[in-house]
């Protein structure tokens, strides 16, 4: 019975094979140019998986027969061979454009979800590999090349041009050897080979953008100061921390908010401690457990956000109590001369600063 399956497939497989390739292409192009997920049955079952699974009968077939070994002019072979470099070039170009601009640039500008193009490339290569079991015209021994004749006179010195040509010759030879290697692979080895190939492609496709953007971003900051680098990584928060550091002495005791809602950074004592050490940091919990509040010299000021819902923490800002103060310094906006701080004052809305309680 098992032996009958390949016989049945032999009769129709050539057409089915081309058809599955074309259907896969249509799916992927839709996923790339219309919108991602258009053909997905489920978020965990992408079309890619289905098209790979559709090739299983093909593998059963080739494992049992020599059918493809006698077919050099397979249509699917030609389609895959032609489309692979085109789609791969597109993928690399779009990847480059994306990495040299901003994340999602390609999609927002051209409405092309280029990341999906890698699946077309992978499928093409998958088909190419499976067909590479067909005997390809491998030149086992390259014809002798007269390097002297090929050398472009007066352009390169003799030694260099000969070396370049030798390297090219070596390269061609190794491609041929690669195909010879593929011929020799058994079915089980082919599986390992395909997995390694897919893993390499997945790794490269995932890595191109972060690798280039990491390099470009890092290159921009070579030779810059520590503050500039930290400013890039932590944004305005780092500048705010510098502002606090410059306006307080090392023996200051600073009152800060708890880690809630809008104050995830300003409320994190461990993060504040890294930037403000050796200043002592105090929050409401410390005060509740008998920390002497009269020793507090400063308080962080985070102005109310008027766009936040009424009664919410961001709407009230921090500190949410009236205080007698010595002075108030606003981050990037000078000082306010006042002796009292009131949380509902419009003076501080949307601003950050430092409340000096006592000097």
């Amino acid at each position, binding site marked *: 019975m098992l032996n009958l399956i390949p016989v049945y497939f032999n009769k129709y497989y050539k057409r089915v094979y081309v058809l599955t390739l074309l259907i896969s292409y249509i799916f992927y192009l839709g996923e790339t140019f219309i919108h991602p997920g258009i053909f997905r049955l489920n978020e965990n079952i992408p079309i890619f998986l289905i098209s790979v699974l559709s090739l299983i009968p093909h593998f059963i077939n080739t494992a049992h027969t020599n059918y493809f070994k006698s077919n050099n002019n397979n249509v699917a072979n030609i389609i895959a061979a032609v489309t692979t470099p085109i789609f791969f070039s597109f993928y690399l170009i779009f990847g480059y454009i994306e990495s040299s601009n901003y994340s999602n640039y390609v999609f927002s500008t051209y409405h092309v979800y280029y990341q999906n193009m890698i699946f077309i490339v992978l499928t093409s290569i998958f088909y190419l590999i499976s067909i590479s079991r067909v005997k390809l015209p491998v030149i086992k021994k390259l014809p002798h090349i007269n390097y002297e004749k090929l050398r472009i006179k007066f352009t390169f010195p003799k030694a260099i041009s000969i070396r370049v040509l030798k390297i090219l010759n070596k390269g061609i030879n190794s491609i041929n050897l690669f195909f010879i290697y593929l011929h020799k692979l058994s079915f089980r080895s082919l599986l390992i080979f395909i997995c390694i190939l897919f893993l390499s492609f997945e*790794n490269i496709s995932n890595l191109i953008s972060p690798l280039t953007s990491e390099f470009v971003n*890092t290159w921009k*900051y070579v030779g810059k100061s520590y503050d500039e680098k930290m400013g890039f990584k932590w944004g305005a928060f780092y500048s705010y921390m510098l502002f606090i550091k410059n306006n307080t002495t090392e023996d200051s005791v600073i009152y800060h908010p708890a880690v809630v809602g809008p104050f995830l950074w300003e409320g994190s004592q461990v*993060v504040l401690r*890294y930037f403000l*050490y050796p200043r002592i940091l105090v929050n409401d919990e410390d005060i509740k457990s008998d920390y002497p509040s009269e020793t507090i010299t400063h308080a962080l000021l985070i102005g109310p956000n008027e766009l936040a819902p009424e009664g919410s923490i961001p709407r009230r800002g921090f500190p949410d109590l009236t205080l007698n103060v010595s002075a108030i310094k606003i981050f990037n906006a000078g000082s306010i001369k006042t002796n009292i701080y009131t949380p509902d004052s419009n003076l501080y809305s949307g601003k950050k600063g430092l409340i000096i309680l006592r000097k």
Partner: protein
Amino acid sequence: MLSISILIFGCLLVSVLVPKYNILEKLILGFGVGFGIVNFIITINLVFSPINKLIIIVFCWIISLIIILKIPRTKKRNIINPCLLLKLNLNKYLISSLFILVTIIIEFVITFSLLVWPVNMWDAVALYDFRGRYFSQEHTLTDLASYSKPAQLKSGGLYYFSYPLLTSNLHAISYLDGINNPKWVYVVLNVGFIYLFYKFLRRSKINISVSGILTFLLASSYYFFKISIIEYSNVPYVYYFVLGVLYFYEWLSKRRKGLLILSLFLIIISTQVRNLESLYIFYVLGLIVSMLVIKKERLRLLLGIITVTISGQFWWKIITLMNKGFIYASEQDYISSSIMGGINNFSFIRVWEVVYYLARSFWAYKWIYALFFITLGFWGIKLLKKSVNTKEHVYFPFYILGMSVYFMLGTYLFSFVNTSWNQVDISVQRAMMPLTPLVLAYVGVGVFSDNNIKFIFGDATDKKNSSNNK
């Protein structure tokens, strides 16, 4: 001076354990082992007083001197022999040039990024680097424990004792040596790990091209890259744990005493990098099984089990107990409440949710798992043909399957104590980092080692041989 003393001490120690390794391997391993051992001394030192540079330098030089005096003359030549570097045949690299070139480019970008940016990631800033800076400014563990006042328990006090000290001590050593950016340590560990992985494959009789490709697959792994450019403890953990596991496998193959000791050192040190995953449990189980099978080595293996267990289970708890007056109680509560929650509230729906969630997280490793199962399939075919040595097909799957099941069980239990259990994909993927090198090493030794080449090429080679015979 401090770093150099530690490096020399580590290199000499490694030279005694694995004298046949090349100088570059000894340097990288020496760095890891040297700093790892000194970490224990610094930790004890920190319990009583601030880091005393003199004690560490004197310790390193005394041990180094003993090693130099003890090594026979012939071996002494092998220790610092720059000519060994010349044995790196560059021409060989050109054979698998493309993969090795891409690997070098990736490693270059990682090195470049690590050296240019200062310590900036959240956990690195708040925990690892803060502790490092703090210790380098003449503070002790008791001073650090002072942040654990009852009122501060929730706002960061315990946080400083949530991980052992190795990475922080590496930062502290850098600061004490006057190096402002301690991220050079991660460069050595990361690039060194990739190189040592490659050398492991080469020593396992895997040809240079396949070794190059497998190393490339490791270096180009997306999560490996993303974690490598940040100063978290995952890369040091992978360095110590995975190398410990690989050298133990090498010991099983070659039975050289030094390899076992080196492997034990690496695993013991790994417990001082991260104690959250507790993957050393699998190593201990491996040691127990080996002890039952290899009767000649029982004593050494038993000592190994005891030291690894003490280091993994008790060391950090004793240190925290000495400094804070109590063990990290919430950790104990956490574990016991999650286990009780898992048992009392057992439901198939939750099991399914966990499996579904993990399948989504593990999807990032789909090709790695595919490679693993295909390699296991090879073993199945080999078993049917009754033609093989099955050591590697038991050793590596034990870790890989064990770790996968362990993470599933851990996630299931975790789901009962934390409502956001299904929003930690990145953490799961980071915790699974040791999986990639282990699977790739398994594919290497299980499929591509010299013994298996004939099997891979299958019919083609057989036919060729038979035609030659005719």
